[in-house]
């Protein structure tokens, strides 16, 4: 037997030279997700066929996930609809790894929300875990210390047999990764709806803090500076993972995509965080870029594009977990917990001393050049020679066709006003209990109790309050609040208004804590952009969000678009998840979402109209979705937020709870369950003032409303504040019933509901399916 047959065949390297010699060689561009015209465009850019390495790079970087090719033309609005007020606090806007906001006292906060939807369906545990890991690396790359995470989750119907698999995996993955990373999980949301059955949404948000002078941008400047890869070794996991998975639709008969999901090691990432922060502190790096989707392809081409334009890389220097990987696989691998740094030659020794201290493996891959070309060699031959901007920046841009959905007029005409509304107390009581126990409104403790909310010792608010809040400065008490919201049902009825409703709700959730809303990050989850009706939904949602931010005066600082969220031809409800970040001068002044004392007056701020279309009540009680979502008045929301901030600043509020899903009924239930203190309510005056019935008063989802409790001796000042600002306030009850005195929720003349019964209804739902 000839000796050579015992060895692996030596692969023929596809070099730039060979590509020039074999122009007609067929290439698997379609299998890599490129369309014929995109492939032709690459050939035109290069003046030859791409090498297999170049093809790998272009294919991942031109994927929908990395290039935003279908969304770009619409996302421009976020940069155009901007006022001076919005620029005031903005230090870094859209386009960088994460937006950065000036929060005062020399501090800045960076935050971003990103999707990891498709990997989380295929392999829920690793998909969700690496979603947390990826967004946290974005935060580190800005020079910030990550200080908190939260998650916006959407699952299929709670009683579907597959839902428990996905829920256990996703929650377990977030718990595993986030807890081990030492970041408090301070909030988020969980929604169950059959539209997400084979396409769950896992959107992870991370927040970091930094001093102004510590801000870093990831770019490769300074000819001769070293390009260093450090962190975990590169392996065969996640090859084309996020970029390919998130850029196509799942089809039932397709091949399994499991190998494309990345595997996370939170310990490696925790060490990497501390290592990066020490590198920044020691001024040992020019910039650090995280490796996420598209791995080395993305990091090298983006760093070079954002810097002096040239870079020379020796791919043989990449430390491998699996030595049999091909050059193309190394370029595309999405192995986690890796970072790429640009280091001045004279600082390299200091850099390596720090990575050695933290036992982080490091390899110098190459250096920054002024050639304007990204040149990558492998085994002594040139396999990539491209203008990095053509890979990372100037990818294809599509103006996808849009079409007004054929079904939407009929849907809008089918309002909830035709649904029977109960008038007697027993039936109202029964419906309230059903709502509170419904999967989307029920206590999420089964999930959130699996997350560490205490680590770092700065959590001022967290679940189940309306927003999470973190102290930034231990001396002054300066802090931030953050909340995420989305309502896919509303967006299905009207994506423009639905997006604004999500914005208004997240804004209000931040405002009720006493913080001042300051910035937005969004994660736009939609179906296939190749479906003109989906593209219409997307265009309307972006327009609504951009218009809304302009009116509220807070900028979008970044985010993420996730298309192809559908199974077969069935897209999910359009689900733009909006994260709002607010600033509070001293977290000691924060307001909780429930009352802790008896005898405080309950006021409802805002007015209530018959707005039950798309509501939790219509969905839960009548399985109905139709009509038009509630009207949004962003000017009113702004005045409400200012009122809340003023009232919190003067310590007039003992609690404040936003009214949204489930209306007043759900808000009262949550606010009384928060500390187990009951309440007596009367709805008569409210019904008379607003011309509504009891069911509408309890279940309508009119916007601009907040339930507050006010200590009696602050009554006069509080009402003076509301009158001065012209915001409607009506006393609708009083807190009553201590935790050890069988407290109840009493709605006068209608019903009495013991909190014990309410708590059981709320708390038992999730464990029934998942425990």
């Amino acid at each position: 037997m000839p000796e050579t047959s015992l060895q692996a065949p030596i692969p023929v390297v596809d070099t730039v030279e060979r590509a020039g010699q074999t122009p007609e060689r067929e290439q698997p561009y379609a299998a890599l997700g490129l369309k014929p015209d995109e492939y032709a465009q690459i050939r035109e850019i290069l003046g030859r066929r791409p090498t297999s390495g170049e093809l790998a790079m272009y294919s991942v970087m031109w994927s929908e996930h990395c290039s935003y090719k279908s969304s770009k033309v619409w996302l421009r609005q976020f940069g155009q609809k901007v006022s001076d007020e919005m620029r005031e606090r903005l230090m870094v806007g859209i386009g960088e790894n994460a937006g950065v906001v000036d929060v005062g006292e020399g501090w800045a906060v960076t935050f971003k929300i990103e999707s990891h939807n498709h990997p989380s369906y295929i392999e829920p545990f690793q998909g969700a875990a690496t979603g947390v890991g990826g967004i946290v690396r974005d935060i580190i790359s800005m020079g910030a210390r990550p200080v908190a995470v939260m998650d916006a989750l959407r699952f299929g119907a709670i009683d579907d047999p597959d839902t428990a698999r996905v829920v256990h995996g996703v929650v377990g993955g977030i718990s595993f990764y986030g807890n081990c990373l030492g970041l408090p999980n301070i909030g988020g949301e969980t929604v169950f709806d059959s539209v997400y059955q084979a396409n769950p949404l896992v959107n992870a948000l991370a927040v970091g803090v930094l001093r102004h002078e510590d801000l870093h941008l990831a770019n490769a400047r300074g000819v001769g500076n070293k390009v260093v890869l450090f962190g975990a070794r590169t392996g065969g996991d996640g090859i084309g993972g996020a970029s390919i998975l998130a850029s196509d639709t799942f089809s039932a008969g397709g091949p399994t995509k499991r190998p494309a999901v990345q595997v996370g090691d939170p310990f490696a990432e925790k060490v990497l965080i501390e290592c990066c922060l020490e590198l920044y502190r020691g001024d040992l790096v020019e910039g650090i870029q995280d490796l996420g989707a598209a791995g080395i392809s993305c990091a090298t081409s983006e760093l070079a594009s954002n810097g002096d334009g040239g870079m020379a890389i020796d791919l043989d220097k990449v430390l491998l977990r699996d030595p049999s990987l091909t050059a193309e696989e190394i370029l595309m691998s999405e192995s986690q917990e890796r970072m790429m740094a640009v280091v001045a030659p004279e600082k390299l020794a200091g850099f390596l001393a720090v990575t050695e201290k933290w036992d982080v493996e490091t390899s110098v891959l190459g250096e920054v050049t002024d050639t304007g070309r990204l040149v990558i060699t492998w085994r002594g031959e040139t396999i990539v020679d491209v203008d990095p901007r053509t890979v990372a920046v100037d990818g294809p841009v599509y103006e996808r066709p849009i079409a007004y959905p054929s079904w939407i007029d009929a849907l809008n005409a089918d309002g909830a006003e035709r649904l029977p509304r109960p008038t007697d107390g027993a039936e109202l009581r029964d419906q309230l209990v059903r709502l509170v126990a419904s999967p989307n409104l029920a206590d999420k403790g089964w999930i959130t109790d699996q997350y560490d909310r205490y680590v770092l010792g700065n959590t001022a608010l967290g679940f189940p309050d309306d927003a999470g809040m973190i102290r930034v400065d231990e001396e002054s008490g300066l802090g931030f609040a953050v909340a995420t919201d989305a309502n896919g049902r509303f967006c299905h009825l009207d994506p423009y208004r639905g997006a604004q409703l999500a914005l208004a709700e997240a804004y209000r959730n931040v405002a009720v804590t006493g913080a001042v809303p300051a910035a937005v990050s969004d994660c736009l989850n939609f179906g296939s952009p190749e479906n003109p009706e989906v593209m219409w939904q997307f265009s309307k949602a972006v327009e609504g969000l951009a218009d809304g931010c302009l009116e509220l005066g807070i900028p979008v600082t970044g985010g993420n678009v996730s298309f192809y969220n559908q199974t077969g031809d069935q897209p999910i409800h359009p689900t733009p998840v909006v994260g709002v970040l607010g600033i509070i001068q001293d977290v000691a002044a924060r307001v909780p979402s429930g009352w802790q004392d008896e005898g405080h007056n309950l006021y409802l701020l805002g007015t209530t109209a018959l707005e039950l279309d798309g509501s939790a009540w219509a969905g839960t009680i009548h399985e109905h979705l139709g009509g038009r979502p509630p009207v949004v008045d962003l000017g009113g929301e702004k005045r409400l937020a200012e009122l809340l901030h003023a009232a919190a600043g003067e310590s007039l509020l003992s609690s404040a709870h936003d009214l949204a899903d489930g209306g007043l009924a759900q808000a009262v239930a949550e606010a009384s369950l928060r500390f187990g203190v009951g309440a007596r309510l009367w709805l008569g005056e409210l019904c008379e003032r607003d011309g509504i019935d009891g069911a509408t008063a309890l279940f309508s989802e009119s916007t601009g409303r907040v339930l507050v409790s006010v200590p009696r001796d602050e009554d006069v000042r509080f009402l003076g504040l509301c009158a001065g600002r012209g915001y409607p306030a009506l006393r609708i009850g009083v807190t009553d019933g201590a935790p050890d005195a069988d407290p109840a929720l009493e709605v006068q003349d209608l019903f009495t509901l013991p909190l014990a019964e309410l708590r059981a209804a709320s708390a038992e739902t999730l464990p029934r399916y998942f425990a």
Partner: protein
Amino acid sequence: MRIGVVTFPGSLDDRDAGRAIRLAGGEPVALWHGDHDLQGVEGIVLPGGFSYGDYLRAGAIAARSPIMTEVVDAANRGLPVLGICNGFQMLTEAHLLPGGLIRNEKGSFVCRDQTLRVESSSTQWTSAFTEGEEIVIPLKNGEGGFIADTETVARLEGEGRVAFRYLGYNPNGSVRDIAGIANERGNVVGLMPHPEHAVEPGFGPDTRAAMRSGVDGLRIFRSALEGVLAA
């Protein structure tokens, strides 16, 4: 008085432990796992976290870190040593405390405000409490189920070395609801709950008086500080 907090790769609550020592009136000193130097501290805290990612067994690799030679010596000399959560796991792996910690009975990580009963006030970390006192300390762990053989458990109980016991709810299946134990001399204490998360009004567990105002953990650190000052 100077109390050292050892940082291992993967330690998470080291800064929190330092803050707790400061709020209790001491001076926290950052110690590094790879050194052989305790910098003359008068007490040591092994903080919570996931040292070495819980690989092999929680605390097993950290227990063999260079600095642990000095920690074991110091413990044997009578220096107060507190192991919190992952630190408790290290103390059992280093054989400074008996028994071991296994995966929670229900399988998943649990974070909750946990009521404890202080069973012994004769350890160096519990002397500021009255025996039988009920306190609330946040708990957060995935592998917090205390186990030991019957004989060891009987000895711990008989010698009054059960320092803390879970009250009302056993969150991880620990034998006899044991939340924390001490060595024979009472200078080494390990517990799963996190006293460093109940030291500052506004950032601790909820109480009847006000949200997040629980500071019961402070007295655990004060116990050691007062003990050293008195000695």
